[in-house]
């Protein structure tokens, strides 16, 4: 269960960011922002292989003592960032991958909507519901 989920566009502007409201959201925003550097590094590192060979799932980007940040980038350079609590050790890599996959699928659905202009903040309810299922249930 993620603590914060963010979708960042190709130009590194956020399209969607949602955190568990109990904690300081600004902190998560900042974390996501710093993780973008790591994402850039990872995707630029695979220089020899073109995008089609590069795996979309980037894995653990950035661990701190409080939480871990996982990254995923699509072929169109849209980045998904998931922040999970470090205390939640039960989360396995496969689960993170499946979360990213779901995110990617629902993001694609949002994109398919002709009423959505790329670059707009994502306001789709379906997307919200998907994200809600992945977020830590605020108690």
């Amino acid at each position, binding site marked *: 269960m993620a603590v914060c989920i963010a979708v960042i566009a190709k130009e590194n502007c956020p399209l969607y960011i949602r955190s568990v409201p109990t904690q300081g959201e600004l902190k998560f925003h900042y974390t996501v922002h710093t993780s973008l550097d*790591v994402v850039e*590094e990872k995707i630029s590192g695979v220089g020899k292989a073109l995008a089609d060979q590069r795996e979309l799932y980037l894995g*653990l*980007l*950035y*661990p701190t003592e409080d939480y871990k940040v996982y990254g995923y980038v699509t072929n169109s350079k849209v980045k998904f960032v998931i922040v999970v609590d470090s205390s939640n050790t039960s989360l396995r890599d496969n689960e993170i991958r499946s979360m990213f*996959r779901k995110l990617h*699928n629902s993001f*694609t*659905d949002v994109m*398919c*909507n*002709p*009423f*959505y202009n790329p670059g707009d903040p994502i*306001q*789709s*309810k*379906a997307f919200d519901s998907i994200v809600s299922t992945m977020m830590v249930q605020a108690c």
Partner: protein
Amino acid sequence: MESLTLSDVEQKYYSELFLSCDVDNAKKVASNGKVLDLFRAAQLSNEVVHQITELCGATRLGHFGRSQFYIALKLIALAQSGLPLRVESLNTVRDLPLPRFVMGKNEQEMRHMFADPENQGPYLPRPPGRVQAKKVSAHETIQPCVPTVDPQPDTTSPVVSPHQSPPTSPHAWRKHKRQASGGNVDRQPSVPGVVWPPFREAQPGPVTGDGMWSAHSPPPVQESWVSFTDTPPSSTLPMHLPSAQPESTTVRTVPSAMTTNEIQRQISGYDDPWKITDEQRQYYINQFKTIQTDLTGLIPGSAAKEFFTKSKLPILELSHIWELSDFDKDGALTLDEFCAAFHLVVARKNGYDLPEKLPESLMPKLIDLDDSAGVPEPAPEVGFSASPVEVTPNKSPSMPSLNQNWPELNQSNEDTAIVHPVPIRMTPSKIHMQEMELKRTGSDHTHPTSPLMAKPPELSDETKLAATITFPGTTVGDGYSSSDSFTSDQEPISSAVNRQRSHSGTSPEGLKVVAPPPPPPRPNASHSRSSSLDMNRNFAAVPAVTSPSGPQQPGVVAFPPAVPPRPLPTQTSVPHGHRSVEGDGLSAHTSTSPHQMPEQPNFADFSQFQAFAVDQPADDGEKPSDSGQAERCAESTGTMRTAKNDVQAEERNATTVNSAKVSTPLAPPPKPVRRRLKSDDELRPDVEDLPQKSNIIATVLATQPSIPRSIGKDKKAIQASIRRNKETNTVLARLNSELQQQLKDLLEERISLEVQLEQLRPFSHL
């Protein structure tokens, strides 16, 4: 009570209200609870409410029967009109507007009730008649009280004289007009008079749930049913309703006709407010044609966007409507999806809230393939599945979407596809074996490993790997029961092997890790006895083979000395198999040989085994434990198999009879083979021992040929050989288990190292 004559409209209205209050279906409602709420919602003072209650007789009865309820409602209307509350006035006041109830939270209740099958009426009128208030079960709701009502249009409309509406509507008419038929009747107390007459005109309409609605239906015919142009027109729609202006008729005849009738039908007790009536559907289809002439085709997203943008709904809502209606998430609308979207737009324009999920009746008639797209759950309303009318048109439009669904499904499937963990025998030992066999048998092209014959016993990893890769292909025919999976795994394993090759420093290890060694060509494991003979040859060749492989395993676990040179035995056994097959004079042998042939020629080498068994005693003393093990390994492809089987099944004692032994290895050849592979892998580190053992094995093998001779002699020899085989089995089993353990340890070590590496990696860039 006094007799009460109600107009039809009133009748309808009251019955709806009664139903809404009569949640228990008891045909009477308690005086408290909903009824009181309702009365309070009428915004009358409590005193008046009490008075009404008293007048209608509920206080006498203690509850509101239907008649009491009706009387009460009428009294409320009276009170709201400012008329004195008198029983006599119940029947005298003719033009009494329907009682108005402030919706507030009642609206929510009403909505819920609305969702119930019985209470559709008051609410249904909504879509056609945009008057949200109406929607609220014909309760006149003051605009602010209606949360779901489109604020802008409604507020203005009621005030405006109905007669003004028609002129405005033509302006609004563009593509299609949505007609908010009816609602405003309830709207303002101030215009009840104005409203009423036209309302009455509408009386003839079929009595649907909502009297008002029904009243509206005929007159509103002219009103545009859907106005996709400006909101002002929609706001004027309520006004239109009461007016039976001819102008509107001309412009919107078709759609309005659809609307009203459909609305009525909707109101008339259909459970599903989202149901698309025939006229509506026809209208939608016509509109679809204006965009896309082919009814089975798709409307691209951009065209649909333009079309629906004309409805002047906010983009966010249109986006939500799209999400709901684009069932297959393909970015285009089929006819069904288009109808659903259109219907939702109409509903929204009329003030209905958009559902969270697509209502059942709006779902395109797809076969349930589109799981990946997320089949919307049925709306809370009790919805019929789409009417038959919808079915047929759905079929064709849905076909393309079906096709579109497939890729999604496939993609999702690919994600979750689990590659068969086909055990491929990656062990180089196999290759060794094959090579050995090739060397020995030479001309035995029937040998499964014959393909390898072409390859010199190159011990380079690539060669081994390549051989391994090809070998599986050839060994498929070996008759391993696992060959099926074996074959299928060829490619992935080959690739795995290749990968291994590229980056596994120690190929043996890499091979081991890559794939659970599929039953290797098991030349050795094929049969216990024959292998003995082969072992001689194998072991002879093994040194050559193993030596190169030895250095390949630098980092390999310091294999326990006890580990017999498995690869050798397998290798040697293979040729044994060949020989046994060829020279099989033993009956049992022959019987098994053909069977074994597919697996390992050595396999069937019963004679070899016997010979080996004969030699066993002699050899036992000479060989060190390792060699003994190696010998035993080499001794029997079948034996080893048996051993493995034994190990696995702990049936060491099961093979009491040679024939049994012969058969057992044959029976589960794949298993032993597999184990063999593993053990081969384990043995890889132990290959170094092979040279030592090869000699011993060679000696053992050499003794095997004597077995056939002895067979004919007496049972004793057979029994002796059986015993020896058993011992061999035991030793091999032990060896096998040890090797397995080694392998596991190695793998764990590797995993832990990898984990450490992973942990360290994130910090690499810091």
